[in-house]
């Protein structure tokens, strides 16, 4: 009896130590980059960032924020200009479509739904070349508006899929009750269904915001003028080809990831539910 208990305790301790060691290993790069960002690079390169004693300064952050060649303050502004509409527009449009997919049967319904799934499996690379010509033709190449449109369209497929799955779980009786009570279709959708879907909408908004904010590929391809660069593009250009100023880069990295990280801290539950939800179950 006692031996069993002891064995169990040892097992428990080993598991805890191993898992936590792994967790610490996982967070180490974040700690490291944070330490580097807070201290003069000359000091870090000599002693290593793990020596806690030394000078602490915000100089790297100030440099990154108003760097003469790629000022992050401009990148931040551009990132917000792109990300906010590219979150709201597809969320709204996809919610309408998802509701139709969840509640009505109509010709081509299955085919259109499969089309959405195929788009979800497509790499972004598959759209770039024609989009480049299209944007040039309509004058949106190297424009934030063009990027907004492309991100909005690209987000529609997964958001529709996600929200359709969510609407499927809502009891139809509530909408039927509203219809008997005299509500119009628009009223039912906007005043009953959408408010009931707030958790799903929060998940979608958090994830779409993060993805658009984090996007690098579309921005790299469709933005050329430095004054139009979004934050991810600027951080990437801060890293020189041969010499790396880690202090500046660390501060830039932390600033760039701080926006989705803050969102994650605020909406952690919705994040996780969203990441899991849109993949689990059809």
């Amino acid at each position, binding site marked *: 009896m006692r031996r069993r208990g002891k064995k169990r305790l040892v097992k428990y301790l080993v598991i805890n130590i191993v898992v936590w060691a792994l967790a610490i290993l996982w967070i180490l790069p974040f700690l490291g980059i944070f330490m580097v960002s807070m201290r003069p690079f000359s000091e870090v390169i000599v002693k290593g960032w793990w020596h806690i004693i030394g000078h602490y300064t915000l100089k790297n952050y100030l440099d990154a924020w108003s760097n003469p060649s790629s000022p992050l303050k401009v990148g931040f502004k551009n990132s917000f200009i792109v990300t906010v509409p590219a979150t709201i527009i597809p969320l709204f449009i996809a919610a309408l479509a998802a509701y139709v997919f969840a509640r009505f049967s109509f010709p081509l319904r299955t085919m259109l739904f499969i089309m959405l799934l195929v788009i979800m499996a497509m790499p972004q690379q598959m759209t770039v070349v024609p989009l480049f010509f299209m944007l040039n033709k309509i004058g949106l190449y190297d424009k934030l508006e063009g990027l907004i449109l492309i991100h909005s369209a690209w987000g529609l497929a997964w958001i529709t899929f996600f929200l359709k799955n969510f609407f499927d779980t809502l*009891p139809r009786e509530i909408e*039927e*009750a509203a*219809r*008997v009570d*005299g*509500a119009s279709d628009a*009223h039912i959708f906007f005043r009953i269904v959408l408010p*009931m879907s707030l958790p799903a909408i929060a998940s979608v908004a958090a994830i779409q915001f993060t993805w658009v904010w984090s996007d690098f590929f579309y921005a790299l391809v469709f933005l050329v003028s430095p004054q139009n660069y979004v934050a991810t593009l600027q951080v990437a250009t801060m890293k020189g080809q041969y010499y790396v100023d880690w202090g500046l880069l660390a501060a830039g990295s932390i600033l760039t990831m701080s926006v989705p990280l803050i969102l994650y801290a605020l909406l952690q539950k919705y994040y996780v539910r969203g990441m899991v939800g849109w993949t689990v179950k059809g």
Partner: protein
Amino acid sequence: MARVFLENIVKRFGKVVAVDHINLEVHDKEFLVLLGPSGCGKTTTLRIIAGLEFPDEGRVYIDDKDVTDLEPKDRDVAMVFQNYALYPHLTVRDNIAFPLMIRRKQLGLTREEIYRRVLDVAKLLRIEELLDRKPGQLSGGQQQRVALARALIRRPKVWLMDEPLSNLDALLRLQMRAELKRLQREIGITTIYVTHDQAEAMSMADRIAVMNHGRIVQVGTPDDIYFRPRHVFVATFIGAPPMNIIRCITVLKNDKLYLSCPGMEREIPRGITKYLRGDMEILLGIRPEFVDVYKEPKPGAIRAKILVVEPQGSELILNLNISPESGEETIIKVKTRALRRYSPGEIVYLEPDWTRVSLFDAKTGKAIA
């Protein structure tokens, strides 16, 4: 003032015929129950009246007005759902107010007037303390009352209820039955109520429409349904335990018609012989309640052997074999008051109340006479 009239309603889902040529008239202020097993089409019928489904054939009339193609909102009906379907993001007050708020401009009501009426209805249903809560914070019984209040506030022409009590626990269900009936009487509102629970139907209905396989088998008062089933399905669906059905044959002897059943033979009363011939297969229906049990032999009584005794408190249910000699088993159930002790294996003598038996044609299932 509201009558509901269904004329030849047919509804199909793919190949399945959910509702099969239904004709039904619901009178003003009547409490009509649609009763039947699950999948019999009763909920679909209700949803057609509500306007949530549209029939493939037939017409729906409310007060002689053809509403077949009207949206629910233009029919002036209210509906209570099995899972209550309360709006989770609205308070109880706003849930109840919802049907009026939607029509506020049409009706020319102010918010204050609406909330005053919410309070009136809430008082009637004794939920005025709950008005500021959200549905998620309420018990099942409270949610039920809120759903009723929401269906009441508009004073609709017709109240539609889809198994509204089935999610409540047994005791609450009994209370709500009485209360619902009282409310309906007081307000005098035409009500169509769907349930699969025959006890609920018997205790609440003015009339019951029993449905099976998408058709209405019988419409009548609870008494009619109970004492005078028009079909063997009704006989076996109603009652706990349901009516005993014994397979018999008519025999013509010396110009008299006899009913020959396992364990007994009996002359058929003159009144109904005109519907019968010799050699017909007949189902004899005897309610378990209408059989007297004797321990001593009695002339004309049926000899039976007790198989199982089920005590039910003040009553007993005996499972009996009425043809113990023949080697086959013909089992019937008999309900009797628990005044005496019975034990399995015992032989007893049964005397049915012959004025209350039913006869059905074995081929069609329909009642004879």
